[in-house]
């Protein structure tokens, strides 16, 4: 698996150089807080001296914000009314 492959490779790089490619594959683990302490330090050290990867991380964060703040379709009033009507029916039934 590409993801695991790069993750393993990243661990290998604990003793060497971390590549930008490895950073792009480990980024979700980083954002999810799933990197071990040493991996995390190595990742952050790379970020500290790599403008490209800082931008990449920024793009990723903005992507998440874009997806998370997509305007939501409001519930059509008819659908909402029907649901509330069902609630009333349920209430009447469950309280008798």
């Amino acid at each position, binding site marked *: *698996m*590409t*993801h*695991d492959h790069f993750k393993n490779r990243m661990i290998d790089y604990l003793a060497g150089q971390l*590549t*930008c*490619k*490895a950073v*792009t*594959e480990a*980024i*979700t*683990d980083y954002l*999810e807080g*799933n990197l071990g302490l040493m991996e995390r330090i190595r990742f952050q050290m790379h970020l500290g001296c*790599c*403008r*490209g*990867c800082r*931008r*990449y991380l*920024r*793009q*990723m964060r*903005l*992507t*998440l*914000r*874009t*997806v*998370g*703040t*997509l*305007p*939501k*379709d*409001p*519930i059509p009033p008819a*659908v*909402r009314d*029907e*649901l*509330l009507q*069902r*609630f*009333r029916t*349920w*209430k009447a039934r*469950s*309280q008798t």
Partner: protein
Amino acid sequence: MEPGFLLEDVALLQALRKGDETAFAQLIDHYQASLLRLAMTFVSSHAVAEEVVQETWIGVLEGIGRFEERSSLKTWIFRILTNRAKTRGMRERRHAPLSPLGNSTEDPETPAVDPSRFQTAGYWVDHWKSLPRYWDDETPERLFLSKEGLAQIEKAISALPPIQRQVITLRDMGGVTAVEVCNILSIGETHQRVLLHRARSHVRRALEKYLEEGDSQP
């Protein structure tokens, strides 16, 4: 590991069980859009997805008395939807064996970034050949401004394999935690993370392509 029952759930649940209509209205206003999005990843049409969501709410009302508070209310509602949507999806596929949603576990392996973006030789192999662009803070808002921008984001998400769509919809749109997602979709933690990684990377790539299309400035 499940974060479990939340304090705000307690009040909401009590109100619901007492038959408080505003509590139910609050619940549907809060979850309807996320439920519909999730349902869309299992079935082939908007109409069927809407039916599945309606069925989910009926399931919520029918089950609320028996809800045992071992998971959060949110997880419980999403699980009801997932179960119903899966059943509907399976039924649909039996009648249409060539449905494009046929293989819901389809999970192609693609690198997060186009390999041509990296150097292929020398000391700096696998480092950026051309740096990613700087995206400013208003990028999401700017994308939302145009119909085309919105359509591109939707297109990027709907192009994902269903299981990836399910994960990104729950995590990044529904605000559901990783542990809850595993519970709702019955997948393992590592698998969840891989799916999330692929989905997010794909969407970033699509946004990058759209934002920089026809724009050759480095």
